[in-house]
């Protein structure tokens, strides 16, 4: 079956997003099982506010869960710190990169409003958060059963890599579908999207490096060390 036909058939009741806390989490079903319905709502600006609220809430909670597992390597205060830091990195990166995405897409011929752009970017962040929370049990299992940090660093990098790939794939699929149903303009410019992914990657790495440590114990029990530097320094 054609990819677009499949997306055309997706159904999701976005009015239900406003119904209590359970309703907020139904956005996960939209992202996982009915991205086509989400993209159609995005195009006609239907319930965008509810979508944005739900997407932010789920991104924060899911990334906090994975962050807690990162910090569980040094139980105690660091677990709490890492749980607070990871949502800042993921959501912060998304918010810092949204203006660039909005302005350059508009210059390249998109008629998307800022709200639509923001919701599309949040769709990316929640896709990443979903993969992270899905891998959380595995990461937890290895964290409690492993001694040294070497293997864990590799595992976490792998999980973040998979999450980033899934996020890129999700937003790119949304872009293709938008292109398919929108005849008047190009909502998201294809070549710019990939350049933008590189910017997002760079910003996320720099932000994570600035908010370090995640695995190590924090020096003097401080949340934020304030040590400046470029993320490539960590490779040395």
């Amino acid at each position, binding site marked *: 079956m054609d990819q677009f036909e499949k997306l055309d058939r997706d159904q999701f009741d976005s009015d239900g997003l406003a119904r209590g806390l359970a309703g907020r989490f139904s956005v996960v079903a939209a992202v996982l099982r009915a991205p086509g319905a989400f993209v159609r709502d995005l195009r006609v600006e239907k319930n965008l506010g509810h979508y944005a609220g739900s997407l932010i809430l789920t991104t924060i909670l899911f990334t906090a869960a994975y962050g807690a597992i990162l910090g569980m390597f040094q139980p105690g205060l660091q677990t709490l710190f890492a749980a607070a830091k990871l949502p800042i990195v993921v959501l912060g990166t998304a918010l810092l990169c949204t203006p660039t995405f909005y302005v350059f897409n508009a210059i390249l011929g998109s008629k998307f*409003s800022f709200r639509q752009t923001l919701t599309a970017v949040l769709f990316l962040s929640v896709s990443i958060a979903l993969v992270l929370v899905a891998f959380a049990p595995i990461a937890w299992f290895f964290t409690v059963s492993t001694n040294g940090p070497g293997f864990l660093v590799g595992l976490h990098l792998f999980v973040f890599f998979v999450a980033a790939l899934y996020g890129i794939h999700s937003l790119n699929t949304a872009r293709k579908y938008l292109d398919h149903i929108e005849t008047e303009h190009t909502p998201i410019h294809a070549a710019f999207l990939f350049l933008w992914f590189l910017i997002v990657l760079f910003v996320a790495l720099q932000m994570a490096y600035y908010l370090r440590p995640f695995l190590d114990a924090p020096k003097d029990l401080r949340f934020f060390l304030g040590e400046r530097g*470029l993320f490539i320094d960590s490779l040395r």
Partner: protein
Amino acid sequence: MTVHALLLRRETSVAGLLAAATLSSACFGAAVGSYTGRWQVLYDALKMPLYLLGTLAISFAAMHVFAARERQARETFAAAMETVALTAVVLGALAPLVWLMSVSVHWSPGLRAPESQRDYKILILLLTGSVAVAGVAGVGRLHSRLRSVRLTAAWVLIYQFVGAQMAWLLKPWVSHTGLDDRFLPLRQNLQGNFYESVYRTVVGLFS
């Protein structure tokens, strides 16, 4: 609202463009100034709109002369204002990225540490790149408004000629000494100008 209309090439008012240009460029200025921190954030937030709009104010008469044959001053001013506003909006969109880099890269007093020298260069490269990208977007819009390569080139030349000196006059932008106590060291900046400095650098290279 004005920003959205500006980006989508819809009808805009000069007042709206002025506000959008001022606010967006102030955001970029604040992001640039946050490398030095403290007062420099405010200084650069004031200097950036002053730089973009001040350059326009000084060079507009010369720009208009070349377009006066076919256009009224109101039209040429709207085109110039739209270009400056779009440039400022692109800079504003890049401001969050510049801010993150400004506050997080290595810095040491007087850039004595080698990492901070490297990061200072990276930051300057990022700033130059941002301004270049914004400039390209602005010139693209200007050309679509004026529909003449020669006129666009003339305008860009005039604006750049004045703009380079304006930026020189308003320095420091990124203070690597870490001092934020000078908003405008006018006495120092009035000695020599941008073009004399370039000349001396070039001569120095070959002597």
